[in-house]
């Protein structure tokens, strides 16, 4: 059993060779703990020369991970060999440890904003605007899609039937917003379907049962398939084209969500040659204040308004929608999933109708549809481009307040944004 230490940019890389068995485990634990005592909370264990792992070895890794976790650090594994990998899998520890193919990949996953920017400033593009600074980190080049299921017409006229329900695996809807419910049997949720969103695979749902108390569902293990049931839903891709950091000039009050979209539209028109006018957005943001709305009743046949008009009709709106009269939830943290449409766009009016159900878009109006889960203020773990990490941290450590449909006047001070330049609506 040999351990070799190498420090790179504050991350301690430990090359282990030999067996991680009961015989060796105490010695390894002692040596790794002494690294933490020296102040190294971010470690990468290079396991390319470890071909054997027993439960004692797992115990060492787990104890180490728990200790640095409490110190805001992390332990990542790289080059895990087939046999130890299988043992981690059988024992249910695969999703507990972050595992990377190479040391380099593991190092990158630790990188903070400053490191990425210093390491390769070519990857970051900074845009100064009249409302604040946007910094773009390129991610993938696959054309993005938005997937629409169900019908917003049936929803807006409150005439959904049990047949309107579309059930979809949560794993296909990592980021989405819509109207629906959770439950095994249709009678469990149909009469109280309400606003629903999925963020990084966690579901937040506000049943319209009069209590206005949201349900949370965090899948504990990735093998478990969870179904979500919606009558209308907009799903973004599971990955983003770019990750953007935004910081408003006005740090006291922040800037409105429609102003943020507006700047993103004009930047996109300059930077993205095939931009079609539609953005998918996921944001973890420091909130200035929230202006929200929510649906009060289930939009189903039993509840169809007597005048057969939309639930947003002036005669129906009071009964159907909760409108916030004042700004609320000042200085909180929000997780947002939404779409924004610029004018003009390259999509058909019929496709736009399927998302926004209005002909305003063809008359020159920009349109937005966003849902937000709001939490007591929680600072970011670090100033980084790791959106999913930050979202998961909010679910793990944040105090949830409410979930709402965002009105355009809501303001935000800064955030990490996952952006998709939508090429196709399906």
């Amino acid at each position, binding site marked *: 059993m040999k351990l070799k230490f190498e420090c790179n940019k504050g991350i301690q890389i430990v090359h282990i060779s030999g067996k991680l068995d009961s015989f060796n485990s105490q010695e390894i634990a002692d040596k790794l703990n002494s690294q933490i005592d020296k102040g190294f909370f971010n470690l990468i264990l290079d396991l390319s020369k470890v071909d054997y792992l027993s439960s004692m070895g797992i115990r060492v890794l787990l104890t180490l991970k728990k200790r640095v976790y409490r110190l805001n650090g992390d332990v990542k594994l790289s080059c895990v060999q087939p046999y130890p990998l299988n043992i981690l899998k059988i024992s*249910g520890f695969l999703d507990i440890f972050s595992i990377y193919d190479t040391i380099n990949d593991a190092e990158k996953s630790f990188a903070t904003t400053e490191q990425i920017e210093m390491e390769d400033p070519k990857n970051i593009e900074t845009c100064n605007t009249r409302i604040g600074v946007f910094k773009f980190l390129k991610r993938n080049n696959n054309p993005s899609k938005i997937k629409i299921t169900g019908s917003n017409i049936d929803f807006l006229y409150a005439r959904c039937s049990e047949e309107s329900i579309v059930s979809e695996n949560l794993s296909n809807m990592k980021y989405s917003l819509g109207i629906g419910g959770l439950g095994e049997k249709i009678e469990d949720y149909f009469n109280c379907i309400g606003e629903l969103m999925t963020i990084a695979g966690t579901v937040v749902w506000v049943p319209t049962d009069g209590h206005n108390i949201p349900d949370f569902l965090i899948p504990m293990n990735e093998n478990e398939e969870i179904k979500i049931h919606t009558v209308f839903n907009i799903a973004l891709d599971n990955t983003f084209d770019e990750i953007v950091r935004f910081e408003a000039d006005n740090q006291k009050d922040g800037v409105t969500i429609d102003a943020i979209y507006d700047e993103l539209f004009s930047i996109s028109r300059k930077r993205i040659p095939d931009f079609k006018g539609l953005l998918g957005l996921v944001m973890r943001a420091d909130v200035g204040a929230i202006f929200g709305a929510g649906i009060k009743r289930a939009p189903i046949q039993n509840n169809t308004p007597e005048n057969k008009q939309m639930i947003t009709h002036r005669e129906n709106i009071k009964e159907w929608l909760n409108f916030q009269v004042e700004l609320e939830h000042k200085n909180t943290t929000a997780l947002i999933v939404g779409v924004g449409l610029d004018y003009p766009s390259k999509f058909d009016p019929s496709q736009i109708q399927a998302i926004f159900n209005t002909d305003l878009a063809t008359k020159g109006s920009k349109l937005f549809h966003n849902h937000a889960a709001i939490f007591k203020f929680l600072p970011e773990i670090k100033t980084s481009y790791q959106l999913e990490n930050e979202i998961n941290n909010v679910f793990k450590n944040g105090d949830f307040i409410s979930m709402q449909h965002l009105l355009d006047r809501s303001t935000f001070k800064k955030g990490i944004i996952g952006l998709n330049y939508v090429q196709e609506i399906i």
Partner: protein
Amino acid sequence: MEKKEIILKNKLSEIRRISEIIEKFCENNNLPMRILFDVNLSLDELLTNIIHYGFGDEKEHTIIVKLSLSENILEITIEDDGKAFNPLNAKPPNLDQSIEDKPIGGLGIYLVKNLMTEINYKRLKSKNILVLTKIVTNNLKE
């Protein structure tokens, strides 16, 4: 039919010794690496348990491990004169907990159950007798 009997003392260093014996045994009988790993890991887990918790005293004890291979069936018997303990009754770990709650107890035996084809336990004449069976295949997924 290939047979071997190994006599161990209740010391952790003996696990190293037996793993080398198993390695030779597998080599002599052309058993795949995968089998060697599974058997060594299972013995590591079970012997560690016995040596740590099996004996209520500080005395020297003997643990007997017997190997037999016929056709494609490998049988491993572990005999000790410690306290009666049937590992098959150990509670399985909850695999779905988050990192902070994740317990570690019971994991070793859970692994053995997964790696071996069959496990049988009996208590006979104040001895724990545990028989592990492993069907030898060349299939990596097995």
